[in-house]
């Protein structure tokens, strides 16, 4: 039982990481209807940029700031060069364009900073929390708890941002109906740029935490891909969905690996989230928190 709980909690906390990436997807999808496949590459690029600046001698906060600035520039350029010319194209075309964008971002990031695997130090140890260990005999990583805390903070911040700022209101209006938002004078392109910048920020935070845990390497992009099943589970438009979906994927993935993996030779976490999302799609195509869609003819 203890072992089960340990696996479950570990899974939930690593699920938080998936939620991070999924959050970036949701933001962009809500505001512009673009399924941004490049979010994973953005996570990788952000982490690499941060580490790169640190290697150049920048202190933590400066590196963070510079990396954020780079992500904002990237977002703004993406809006200008990729999205604006493709406005009014079918969503699937935009989706394919973001696959192209993925390659560009990966190439640029590795071309600039090199492709070697680096470590990333945030100063928090990946070791069990002592008092919890003593009280309940369950090992919970400090680092995972820290990640979960950051996630909670970030989601709260985003929620406040959406709820109480002018930009946030405009964003929600755009998410509801592009045309209507345009017609009352909300500058769509500005909104998109802001959203891409925010998504870049989310990617940076995700990149830092993932990078500190697993090292900054190309495989980050694959980890980030696991945000896709999270989205399917949670629905493309829901921030709580991204969080809950991440938790579900993270915990079931770990449980499946531990309890089922041994019968089939392990490594099933490479595909388990996808197959689970697939099974889920068949039962509830709109996701946990998505909106049901009725076809009209």
């Amino acid at each position, binding site marked *: 039982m203890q072992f089960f709980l340990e696996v479950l909690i570990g899974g939930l906390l690593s699920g938080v990481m998936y939620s991070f990436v999924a959050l970036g997807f949701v933001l962009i999808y809500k505001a512009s209807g673009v399924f941004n496949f490049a979010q994973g590459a953005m996570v990788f690029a952000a982490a690499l940029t941060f580490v790169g600046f640190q290697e150049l001698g920048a202190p933590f906060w400066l590196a963070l700031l510079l990396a954020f600035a780079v992500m904002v520039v990237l977002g703004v350029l993406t809006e200008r060069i990729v999205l604006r010319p493709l406005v009014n*194209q079918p969503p699937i075309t935009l989706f394919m*364009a973001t696959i192209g964008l993925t390659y560009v971002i990966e190439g*640029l990031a590795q071309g600039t900073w090199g492709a070697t695997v680096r470590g990333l130090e945030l100063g928090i140890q990946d070791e069990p929390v002592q008092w919890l260990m003593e009280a309940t005999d369950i090992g919970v990583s400090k680092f995972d708890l820290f990640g979960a805390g950051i996630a909670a903070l970030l989601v709260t911040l985003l929620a406040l941002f959406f709820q109480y700022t002018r930009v946030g209101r405009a964003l929600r209006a755009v998410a509801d109906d592009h045309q209507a938002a345009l017609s009352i004078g909300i500058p769509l392109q500005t909104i998109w740029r802001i959203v891409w910048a925010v998504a870049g920020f989310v990617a940076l935070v995700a990149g830092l935490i993932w990078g500190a845990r697993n090292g900054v390497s190309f495989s980050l992009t694959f980890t980030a*891909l696991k945000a896709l099943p999270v989205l399917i589970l949670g629905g493309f438009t829901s921030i709580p969905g991204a969080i809950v979906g991440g938790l579900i994927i993270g915990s079931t993935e770990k449980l499946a690996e531990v309890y089922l993996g041994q019968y089939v030779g392990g490594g099933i976490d490479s595909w388990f989230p996808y197959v689970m999302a697939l099974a889920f799609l*068949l039962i509830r195509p709109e996701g946990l928190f998505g909106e049901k869609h009725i076809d009209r003819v």
Partner: protein
Amino acid sequence: MFYREAGQFKTSYAADQQIFPITQDRVGVLLILAFAFLAVPVLFNEYWLKAILIPFLIFSLAALGLNILTGYAGQLSLGSAAFMAVGAFASYNFMLRIDGMPILLAFALGGLSAALVGIAFGLPSLRIKGFYLAVATLAAQFFIVWALTKFGWFSNYSSSGVISAQEMEILGYKFVTPEAKYLLVLAIVVLLALAAKNMVRSSVGRAWMAVRDMDVAAEVIGIRIMHTKLLAFAVSSFYCGVAGALYAYAYIGTVEPEGFNLDLSFKILFMIIIGGVGSIVGAFLGAAFIVLLPIALDVMVQEWLSGILSPSISSNLQLIVFGGLIIFFLIVEPHGLARLWQIGKEKLRLWPFPH
């Protein structure tokens, strides 16, 4: 001046429904085929055959397969490479486990195995569309590669799932030289391309396009959506499966499941985007482009920038150029090279009197 359809009147529907209704096109295609079968093996050296022409033909076939599914039937797939893997490993096992298995039959059975797997992973398409479906095909991509690596039976318990393709032999003739392999691949690809063209210009192709363009209306005029979509998955996966078998037997020789990774799937997707979504000739143009581009980039980097750029940068440059081109084509010419080809032909029809 010589490329005209003026004066070529069709007096029967049969004549009007030919693949190439314009005489010059027919002659042109026959010339290209004659060149490909007769002149190419003589004119081109081993490097060209082995490193460029054979992979070009094989990728064309895979792109053809994906184009049937994505371009004609409108179902986006990110798992083409996985279906290639199924074809390769299935063919290998048919050859390995059945004595006297003819190689062509093994390829066909490999394709059929891929078709069956394709149908299984196509089932979700009955309920979901668009990028939901794209994510579902990622499940196929990761699951299949994992299964082929984990279960030793598929690779006859070799280490890390590597298989070595057996020799290809038809009626006692062994296909070992690059020329022989090239001709075999060419023959298979030409036949399958012809079959694909026939399908897309018949009612099955129209059903695919109808489902792609507006599925509700398609259903109302009597098209069975489920049947049509699953058929597209099956045929597409068959093509990818045969391509995968050829990839193992005629191109690489020794393959592992990891070789059919997500990157390869994306490459095939890029071929149809650049070549032309929903176009048979586009699959060939796109494959040629994607096969030649890295080689051209390498040459350019070495010629002009050697010393300035390190080799690792050239591989990143490749990523950037690939990605950039995809975005460029989606923005500027969403119908790809095939459309440019067509525009070129229209211009030629008017040349040299454009007014």
